[in-house]
């Protein structure tokens, strides 16, 4: 049996399943095919996993996506630069402000505009709040996949406070659409900083709670320790980024290593790595990431410079000819925009590099030979947002 024929069979099963003729299990001559999704709870949306099994072991596992492909790269070609913001908000919908920032930075780079310091600091604060809102949900959600209901409720409860803070500034809980070329739409409202610091203290308590409740839990450890090990070189070759890369022992964080003008270098925080590369370490690294993010927000709130929040930009934004790439360390990993401008009101071509697309491309590799329940643990710990895969 060659690899190609294997894949052809899988493609056949995919087609069958897509037509609704196969629902759950499908007998083939050398094993069983298990179809998870597109509505499986472990898939955060509409990702489908087609796994070929030999008994309880996975022989080959192929993610099937595209159920949410919205064609943003094509749509952005008929948008003006300010209009792009609205669309890209919807890529990673849990940390949406973080989607805007790299695109705005890339446009600013092409225009030679630099946002004033206060705007950069506020951007950084909102960026980190987006990270907390995103990853705190992961912390609860992953526990849910391992059978622990409580953590999910805690996560939703405490995430709400972060969303309230984002809403107080931007007016939007999910899609702030707040970043502008040259600065920001608005400043912080009165009293916001004190409230935010209280919320950050609360989030640190939440992290401690999660540490007690989930990380120390025997069942959780049994389900995640030593499961889905990704070595550092494999992670790099697949372009895994963010916590998935750091959990494989690779010390790389764009916030620290590739400065883009935001205020991360103004405060004191740590990039955590874990040498194990398993599901547990991915969870653990993300937990530390939330802790560090609360520290960053606290410090930036203390040292917020005064001044304008908008640089002088023309009312009609035309971006000079050129190409620019800006990537930032988003909650899910490296997210970047390769913007090609021809000097028009809108971009000529935008390549959106999202973290989840690369992060889950490792699934066929990492699930080879694991047991079925471990697929859930690996999927959950790799952490993806469907909008971030399908764009």
């Amino acid at each position, binding site marked *: 049996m060659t*690899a*190609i024929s294997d*894949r052809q069979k899988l*493609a056949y099963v995919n*087609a069958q399943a897509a037509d609704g003729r196969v629902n759950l299990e499908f007998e083939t001559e050398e094993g069983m095919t298990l179809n998870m999704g597109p509505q499986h709870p472990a898939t955060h949306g509409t990702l489908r996993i087609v796994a070929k099994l030999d008994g309880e072991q996975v022989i080959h596992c192929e993610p099937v*996506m*595209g159920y949410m*492909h919205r*064609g943003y*790269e*094509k*749509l952005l*070609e*008929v948008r003006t630069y300010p209009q792009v913001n609205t669309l890209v908000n919807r890529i990673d919908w849990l940390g949406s402000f973080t989607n805007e920032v790299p695109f705005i*930075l890339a446009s600013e*780079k092409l225009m030679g505009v*630099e946002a004033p310091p206060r705007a950069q600091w506020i951007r950084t604060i909102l960026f980190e709040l987006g990270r907390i809102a995103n990853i705190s949900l992961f912390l609860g959600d992953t526990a849910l996949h391992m059978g622990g209901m409580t953590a999910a409720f805690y996560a939703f409860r405490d995430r709400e406070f972060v969303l309230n803070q984002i809403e107080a500034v931007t007016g939007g809980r999910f899609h702030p659409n707040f970043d502008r070329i040259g600065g920001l739409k608005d400043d912080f409202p009165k009293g916001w900083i004190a409230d935010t610091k209280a919320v950050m203290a609360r989030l640190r308590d939440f992290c401690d709670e999660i540490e007690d409740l989930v990380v120390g839990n025997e069942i959780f450890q049994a389900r995640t320790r030593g499961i889905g090990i990704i070595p550092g*070189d*494999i992670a*790099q*070759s*697949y*372009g*895994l980024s963010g916590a998935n890369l750091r959990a494989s022992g*690779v010390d*790389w964080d764009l916030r620290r*290593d*590739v*400065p*883009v*003008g935001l205020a991360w270098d103004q405060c004191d925080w740590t990039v955590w790595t874990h040498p194990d590369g398993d599901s547990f370490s991915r969870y653990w690294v993300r937990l530390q990431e939330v802790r560090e993010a609360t520290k960053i927000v606290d410090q930036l709130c203390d040292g917020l410079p005064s001044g304008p929040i908008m640089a*002088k*930009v*023309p*009312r*009609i934004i*035309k971006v000079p*000819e*050129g*190409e*620019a*790439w800006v*990537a930032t360390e988003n909650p899910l990993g*490296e997210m*970047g925009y*390769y913007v*090609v401008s*021809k000097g028009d*009101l*809108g971009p000529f*071509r935008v*390549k959106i*590099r999202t973290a989840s*697309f*690369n992060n889950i*491309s*490792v699934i066929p*590799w990492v699930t080879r030979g694991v047991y079925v329940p471990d697929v859930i643990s690996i999927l959950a710990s790799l952490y993806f947002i469907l909008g971030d895969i*399908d764009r």
Partner: protein
Amino acid sequence: MSDAPAPETDERRDRLVEVLRSELGDRVVDSLVKPGDDVWVRVATDAWQETGRVLRDALRCNFFDFLSAIDWLPSPFGKSEDSPLDQRPALSTDIVTGYAGGETRFQVFARVTSLPERVSITVKADVPLEDLAVDTWSAIYSGANWHEREIHEMYGIGFRGHPYLAHIYLPGDFEGHPLRKDFPLLARHVKPWPGIVDVEPMPDEGDDAEAEGDAAAEGAE
């Protein structure tokens, strides 16, 4: 993006180009280094796979960012924002390529990063229309596998030696290559862009300076 003026030369990025030139010879067609910012290198089509190998092995650019393609043909549909009543202005069909040049309508480009050196590089290669394919990178960077599948369905560019070049996003029987510029954005053709109905026309070149003056005046207030 710092207050310090951009440096005149950039040793780390110059070195990348130098090593590529010494390994590939004159198959490095063009290069552009923006000191302190970024570097672009264009290689010959037949050197595409070897470029990946040199980047990974000789330059230790182990981290795979992305692989993508671009269609340099100006869109024959413009921004698809014209009302049906308007006379559509004649659109240019000249192909003007970007940094590090190019001779063909389609180009593939990829970006990889050397984590220890903290430097990234964008490499490009022309893809001739008569043979719309390049060699695959999927054996060099595992992550390229899915990116090449995406490019294959979106642009119709083939990747020789790719293990499984099936559709990744689009339905299996989808016809056409959506990201090509001559593929119409059907939503805009079925129903005119609603934004065009009520708004004033965009000021043309002459009004631009005035608009900038307004913005400056606002800033002064």
